[in-house]
């Protein structure tokens, strides 16, 4: 029976977890925009990081060549993903690491919980990781009676404040120094009551708070920035040393990594470890990078696990137009330059992945119909700043447009009666199909002028067009169209463009004739 289905393309299996906008983006954005403190904090932070990034990128004469390499390496990885995964698995396993596979968030959470239970521990330390944020691991562990301590400073701030991350690199980007101080004073046991809001003092308070946890932790959980297929090596890129603490001191290390995080070879790291730090924190190199391959006897954790996570990545891979979104190395350059993100902040996107990359990655992983994710591809003016900043050249605007198309198609399939937009588009299709029809329509222009009245503005349009006039007026249309004016000024056959000889004009129009 099952033989019948052999070779049949499987339907994409979508991901679950913290990947959804739970309310439409415009609604969420409106609420976030009302928070003036948030807008001030974000404006300051994103502009600081933009300047830093531009400065360190400009230092390199071969930045564009590196982007070309990075983009091609990732495309090559995706095109050969099964072979890459098999090679990585063989190398990591050969050196004493243990690999687990998780189809989705739930399965990954269960695997991690079981591994922690085996150790008999009820506390774990965590290195900042997007994958574990995506699967909601902390919340799941809490339900299972396991306490997970975030050790990255920004994650710690968010965790202590019972808040949600709003940025993939700096999860507390929406908080300023005095807010951080207040959170520490309120939530950090034994904190110095004389704590000031100097970033250095705040960092010191975090050091004191976590020191004992690091030195006694038996189990750590991490993500990974890169996995190298030809050697089985994993990489964590960080600044504070909390990553080194978690990756070195505990007996057991459990890493959760998306299947798309691989690079074909060790030497490819030379490209990505130049692209990533400069794009993310605007540094020539981040303070610490750790690399490990399975188990090293006598050095670091001796019980090393890796959970390979799908959770909708294969669904994104199945989308020919959208699959390059999986090339993302989570640098956050796209959100730092985005005029929409800069104003709304990360919470408005709902998903773990905010900003331009999140607006494509989230619906690609969950399917466009999941909760309110169909509103995300519209959270953009399509200005293209994200594409310019992306170190692996993901064409985010193109994928945004593609996903808007997916959304419209899925709506059409749902509603049998044509919508106003459908009717408008049908009308446009008719009008633009020939000059005669457009002429006919343009004769109606004086009507618009009439509607505008004496103050020469239209303040309210009917139907869905009313969305446009809700926040702006439309100036009165002219009494004639350009085409009508042209016909009046030029008798057919003897057309002379001012300042051009007829010969020139013919030459210039050649392209249009073709």
């Amino acid at each position: 029976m099952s033989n019948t289905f052999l070779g049949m393309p499987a339907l994409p299996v979508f991901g679950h977890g913290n990947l959804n906008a739970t309310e439409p983006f415009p609604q969420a954005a409106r609420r976030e925009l009302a928070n003036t403190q948030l807008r001030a904090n974000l404006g300051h932070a994103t502009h600081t990081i933009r300047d830093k990034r531009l400065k360190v990128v400009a230092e390199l004469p071969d930045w564009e060549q590196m982007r070309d390499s990075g983009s091609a390496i990732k495309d090559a990885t995706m095109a050969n993903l099964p072979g890459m995964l098999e090679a990585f698995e063989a190398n990591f396993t050969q050196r004493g690491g243990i690999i687990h596979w998780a189809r989705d968030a739930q399965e990954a959470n269960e695997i991690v919980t079981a591994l922690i239970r085996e150790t008999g521990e009820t506390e774990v330390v965590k290195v900042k990781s997007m994958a574990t944020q995506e699967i909601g691991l902390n919340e799941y562990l809490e339900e299972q009676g396991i306490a997970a301590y975030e050790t990255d400073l920004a994650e710690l701030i968010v965790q202590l404040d019972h808040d949600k991350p709003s940025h993939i690199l700096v999860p507390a980007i929406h908080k300023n120094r005095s807010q951080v101080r207040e959170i520490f004073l309120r939530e950090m046991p034994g904190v110095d009551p004389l704590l000031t809001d100097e970033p250095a003092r705040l960092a010191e308070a975090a050091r004191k708070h976590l020191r004992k946890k690091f030195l006694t932790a038996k189990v750590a959980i991490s993500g990974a920035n890169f996995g190298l297929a030809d050697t089985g090596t994993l990489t964590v890129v960080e600044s504070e040393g909390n990553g080194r603490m978690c990756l070195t001191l505990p007996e057991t290390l459990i890493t959760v990594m998306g299947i798309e995080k691989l690079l074909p070879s060790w030497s490819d790291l030379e490209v990505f470890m130049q692209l990533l730090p400069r794009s993310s924190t605007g540094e020539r190199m981040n303070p610490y990078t750790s690399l490990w391959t399975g188990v090293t006897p006598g050095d670091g954790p001796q019980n090393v696990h890796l959970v390979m996570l799908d959770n909708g990545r294969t669904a994104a891979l199945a989308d020919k137009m959208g699959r390059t979104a999986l090339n993302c190395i989570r640098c956050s350059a796209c959100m730092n330059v985005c005029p929409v993100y800069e104003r709304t902040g990360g919470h408005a996107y709902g998903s773990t992945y905010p900003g331009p990359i999140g607006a494509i990655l989230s619906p690609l992983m969950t399917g466009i119909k999941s909760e309110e994710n169909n509103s995300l591809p519209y959270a953009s003016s399509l200005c293209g700043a994200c594409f310019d900043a992306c170190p692996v050249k993901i064409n985010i605007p193109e994928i945004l447009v593609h996903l808007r198309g997916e959304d419209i198609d899925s709506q059409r399939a749902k509603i049998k009666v044509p919508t106003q937009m459908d009717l408008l588009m049908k009308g446009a299709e008719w009008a633009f199909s020939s000059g005669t029809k457009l002429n006919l329509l343009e004769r109606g222009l004086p009507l618009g002028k009439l509607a505008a009245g004496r103050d020469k503005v239209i303040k309210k349009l009917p139907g869905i067009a009313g969305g446009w006039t809700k926040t702006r007026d439309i100036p009165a249309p002219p009494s004639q169209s350009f085409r009508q004016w042209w016909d009046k000024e030029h008798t057919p056959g003897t057309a002379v463009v001012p300042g051009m000889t007829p010969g020139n004009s013919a030459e210039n129009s050649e392209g249009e004739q073709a």
Partner: protein
Amino acid sequence: MSAREDIMGRIKSALRDAPETPVVPREYRRSSNMSAEQRLEQLVDRLEDYKANVFVTPAAKAPAKLAELLAGSSSIVVPHGLPKEWLAELTDDAGSLAVHVDSPERRLTVAELDAVDAVVTAAATAVSETGTIMLDGSEDQGRRIISLVPDRHICLLRAGDIVEVLPEAIARLEATRPQTWISGPSATSDIELERVEGVHGPRILDVIILT
């Protein structure tokens, strides 16, 4: 079906249009055209920019420099493969400085490491363009934990091991060795994206470059 088989099946199905594997262009710089002096100068500049303390000294004067830096310290840890001659001038003043040697036979505990003032290690290589020092767990650099827990890391780097660009370092390093790449002391940019030094890793990084 196992999760592995399931996921592999999904991937193969997702790739049924057989996307092309592009030829990867490698037009970026993969070797240096700087002189050794220029690389040294650049490394010093970049390390200092990230708030490391840098000392350039002839190899013969390294023991004296180390003794000078450790004046006032009461205990240090060193990996068992650290060149003995580097420590030659440390025990002069009536043995007031305790030197703990971490070796496969005698591994220091976390508590012992937390109690020492500093760690002294060598380095595998360094990238001048980014101000990065690489440790690869060789015998003169020791286990990862010893260069992490003490609050001060003194790293001795041979000038001959300085390369300019990252690809040169990658070519010198062995992927499967446990590695730590260090660019300045522990730091964070998590509050208002302003870089401040000194979080969980060693808060002081001293680099002695041996010429």
